[in-house]
């Protein structure tokens, strides 16, 4: 019996090979997309959950930031009994590490407390996690780092030299850290023994991340209140209370969008939701395709159903018949989609910047997810044939062989309308994302980002040595300008210090940009008033200050600012305002322009800027690099053009946009396939009508118009539904940017027209064929 069901099912599929092909292909694509995104979403949700203590690990935050002073952690741990353990992280991005002749610049380095390996579950290859970093001058490295420095030698007990100064003994080797950890480092250096250093008692040095391990039961609001109280500045009893919060480890990766400058770039739950929605929508589209084609198929089988019923098949048996057919299609599609997932995974990883593996398909919650998807598809695929088709009354079915057609078309049109709603939302979103990314890249930043080579420098040494470098660089004909600064655009302007404007008493906290001569002209920043720093006035180094326009406003400077005095505390000095510069986008366009004060402070400078003539970029990079290495042989430089750095600020958006674009295209293809199948069905079933109309004087163009309009209606409805949805979603997304493109009406119109054009192309070929068929043939069609 069962065998017979499958045999009939297979025969059906073979007989309607076009429908079978389209159904299976579209279900396959839909399932593959859905499974891929399931893997992605699962991966994003899995961050940090490998830690056994994940439920009890919390990170200390203040509003919008996560960086604390060196003593914060110990102070709280001593006073709050709920805290079982703590660790601090002091990330470093620029450390020179050497072992014998192996010397590398390491960017994934962090100083930390011994508590780190007690709290987090990082696996050790060698050494004891409990005690690895307990002693001063100990260091733990990753397997990868061990191989890099020591090859096959045993790294335990070996000595690594840091920044040509201190020697650290290796006391542990870590397995490479899991990718789904919200921070990843290669080298961990102990903070033990630093307690008595002067810097470590400086409350202003807010560069430490603090993680606590809490006991099993505690009240989060109580702890947060205690933290806020304990961290009140005792010198300013009247200052407003800073509200400290604690963030659970499992929330860090996806719920830290409000935190500026996080330890490492995190994702956002928004994107996870967007991609979940896309996966679901694409699956929906392919399910709709399947139902549409199935019913199309089934309507032609109405007579067969009638016949079968008349010859004694029960409704149940008919239902089983259609269920087995659906089962066959879903099963085939599922197998194919697994193949496609395997094949596409590397491409998807490349696009999304993840490292998903096909193996993660076998994880238990992924299996549940896939079963869930299949169940949904199964319900959809089975519900219609099993319960609707099998319920046809045989007498009606046999008598009015085709009269069931019209209402069925309505149902199909609704599904097609829904599909195109989804497609239009996806296309609109892609266009908006594309425009926003282009906006980010093309906005006038207020400075010239072209042809500026930049590099971090560990230390410039004394000013004389830097001047030697500057002169050597300027000797090159292609070098236009050379300068140094503490920060360069694309970085955060986060060195806050106090200033007291003339006539005021209280210091105002404001971002400082510490620079050297020629910094502002290297970036071609426009002077609004006064002048830039100039080495013709040697006193500029100690007595001059330049503000941007925003700073003039936020400091509430009255009258002509030029010549007014300003008390600065970083470095402590009395300065006179010599110039006002135009506001420029120092930070990424996520953030509003900040006020900034520019002062000359050579000792703070750690970035080199070289403006070159526009020519062969690579050769100028090489020349600059050669000269720098000659003068600073001990330094490891990292030369990059400024525009490249700026572009990297928006990598996440670009990746999302690209993925989004691909999925939108897939959705269009899937919907078009469905439309094609349905159009072919509807048009075939209208062949006779077309013949009749032609016999009554209809021209080909009139027939085509008639056929196409019926499909255009579905798209028009889709457009009306999609526009508000897309508008809402995209305005929410754009809110994340301080500077953003406008949501013009034409974006929606363009998406609508695009979809209309694609749909018309899909349908027109078939309506053309139908309209030009010889009416004599058409009239014979039954």
């Amino acid at each position: 019996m069962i065998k017979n069901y499958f045999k009939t099912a297979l025969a059906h599929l073979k007989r309607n090979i076009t429908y079978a092909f389209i159904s299976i292909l579209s279900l396959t694509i839909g399932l593959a997309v859905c499974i891929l995104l399931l893997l992605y979403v699962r991966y994003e949700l899995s961050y940090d959950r490998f830690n056994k203590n994940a439920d009890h690990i919390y990170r200390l935050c203040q509003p919008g930031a996560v960086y604390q002073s060196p003593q914060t952690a110990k102070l709280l741990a001593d006073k709050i009994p709920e805290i079982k353990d703590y660790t601090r992280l002091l990330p470093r991005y620029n450390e020179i590490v050497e072992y014998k002749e192996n010397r590398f610049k390491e960017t994934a380095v962090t100083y930390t407390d011994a508590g780190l390996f007690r709290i987090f579950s990082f696996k050790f290859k060698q050494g004891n996690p409990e005690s690895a970093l307990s002693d001063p001058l100990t260091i733990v490295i990753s397997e990868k780092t061990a191989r890099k420095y020591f090859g096959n030698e045993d790294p335990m007990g070996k000595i690594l030299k840091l920044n040509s100064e201190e020697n650290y003994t290796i006391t542990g080797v870590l397995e490479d850290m899991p990718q789904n950890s919200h921070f990843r480092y290669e080298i961990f250096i102990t903070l033990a023994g630093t307690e008595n250093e002067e810097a470590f008692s400086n409350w202003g040095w807010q560069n430490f991340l603090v993680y606590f391990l809490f006991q099993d039961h505690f009240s989060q609001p109580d702890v947060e209140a205690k933290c806020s109280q304990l961290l009140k500045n005792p010198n300013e009893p009247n200052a407003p209370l800073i509200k400290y919060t604690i963030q659970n480890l499992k929330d860090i990766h996806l719920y830290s969008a409000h935190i500026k400058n996080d330890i490492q770039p995190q994702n956002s739950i928004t994107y996870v939701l967007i991609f979940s929605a896309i996966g679901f929508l694409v699956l929906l589209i392919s399910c709709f395709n399947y139902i549409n084609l199935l019913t199309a198929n089934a309507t032609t089988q109405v007579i067969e159903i009638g016949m079968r019923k008349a010859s004694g098949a029960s409704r149940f048996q008919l239902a089983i018949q259609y269920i087995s057919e659906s089962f066959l299609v879903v099963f085939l599609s599922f197998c194919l989609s697994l193949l496609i997932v395997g094949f596409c995974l590397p491409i998807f990883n490349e696009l999304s910047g993840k490292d998903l593996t096909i193996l993660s398909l076998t994880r238990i919650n992924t299996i549940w997810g896939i079963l869930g998807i299949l169940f949904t598809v199964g319900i959809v695929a089975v519900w219609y044939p099993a319960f609707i088709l099998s319920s046809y009354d045989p007498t009606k079915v046999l008598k009015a062989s085709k009269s069931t057609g019209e209402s069925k078309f309505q149902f199909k049109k609704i599904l097609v309308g829904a599909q195109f709603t989804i497609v239009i939302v996806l296309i609109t979103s892609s266009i908006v994302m594309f425009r926003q990314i282009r906006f980010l890249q093309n906005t006038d930043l207020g400075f010239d980002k072209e042809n500026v080579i930049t590099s971090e420098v560990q230390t410039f040494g004394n000013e004389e040595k830097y001047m030697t470098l500057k002169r050597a660089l300027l000797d090159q004909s292609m070098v236009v300008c050379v300068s140094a600064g503490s920060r360069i655009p694309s970085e955060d302007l986060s060195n806050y210090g106090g200033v007291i404007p003339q006539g005021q008493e209280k210091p105002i906290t404001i971002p400082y940009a510490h620079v050297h001569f020629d910094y502002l002209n290297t970036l071609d920043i426009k002077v609004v008033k006064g002048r830039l720093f100039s080495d013709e006035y040697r006193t500029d180094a100690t007595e001059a200050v330049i503000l941007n326009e925003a700073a003039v406003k936020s400091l509430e400077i009255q009258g002509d600012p030029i010549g007014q005095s300003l008390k600065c505390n970083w470095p402590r000095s009395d300065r006179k305002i010599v110039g006002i510069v135009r506001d420029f986008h120092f930070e990424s366009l996520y953030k509003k322009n900040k006020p900034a004060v520019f002062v000359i402070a050579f000792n703070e400078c750690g970035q080199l800027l070289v403006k070159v003539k526009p020519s062969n970029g690579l050769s100028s990079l090489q020349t600059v690099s050669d000269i720098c290495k000659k003068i600073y042989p001990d330094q490891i430089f990292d030369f990059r053009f400024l525009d490249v750095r700026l572009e990297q600020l928006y990598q996440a958006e670009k990746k999302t946009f690209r993925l989004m674009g691909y999925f939108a295209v897939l959705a269009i293809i899937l919907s078009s396939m469905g439309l094609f199948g349905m159009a072919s069905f509807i048009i075939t079933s209208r062949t006779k009508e077309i013949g009749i109309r032609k016999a009554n004087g209809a021209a080909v163009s009139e027939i085509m118009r008639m056929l196409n309009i019926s499909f255009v209606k579905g798209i028009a409805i889709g457009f009306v539904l999609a526009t508000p949805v897309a508008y809402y979603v995209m305005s929410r997304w754009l809110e994340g940017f301080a500077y953003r493109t406008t949501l013009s009406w034409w974006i929606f119109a363009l998406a609508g027209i695009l979809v209309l054009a694609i749909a018309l192309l899909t349908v027109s070929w078939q309506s053309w064929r139908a309209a030009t068929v010889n009416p004599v043939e058409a009239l014979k069609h039954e």
Partner: protein
Amino acid sequence: MIQTVNLTKRFKTDDIETTALNNVSLTVRKGEFIAIMGPSGCGKSTLLNILGMLDSPSDGTYLFDGTDVSKFKESKRTQYRKGNIQFVFQSFNLIEGLNVFDNVELPLIYLKKSGAERKQMVTDILERMKIGHRKNHFPQQLSGGQQQRVAIARAVVPGPQLILADEPTGNLDSKNGIEVMNLLSDLNRQGTTIVMVTHSQRDATFAHRIINLFDGQIVSEEIAQRQQAL
């Protein structure tokens, strides 16, 4: 009105070529009622389709009102035929999704008549055919005879010069069949030229002239014993 000279139609399917019409020369004068008879497959319907400009001949000439339309492309044939030639089929060929009114209105739409004009003309013709009370019904709700009357109403509504009827009574019982034949006769008396393909001797008696077709050729022509409307 109609003059064909050596009209020939060949059909090609893969490698077999069949000749459906072989040198058919025929003249139909304005106001005539012609019946074409012959066994199945003799080419009656093919001839009718060519006369109705639904199809074009492979060879020979077809003069309609003195114009040679045999080489016309489809769009031109449609243009020429529109409103001048209408059809009545054995299987009625009403559009199921449209009600009676809409079905009858069809040719007027393609003649680009205004809405008010269409409404007037359709209402008039439905009254004349005595199916005005059925105008909101759908074809499948009507009996065969009623359906054929709707089809005739549709054929008549644009005021064609020529009506081509392909076995108009083939799907009807004799009572309804005679009713339909009476309708056609009336139309003929009012000036419409009618060419009808039929198997039925009785129907043929309504015509002025009977043309017998065999294997695609005209084998004989006779003047019918005209039956008076019953």
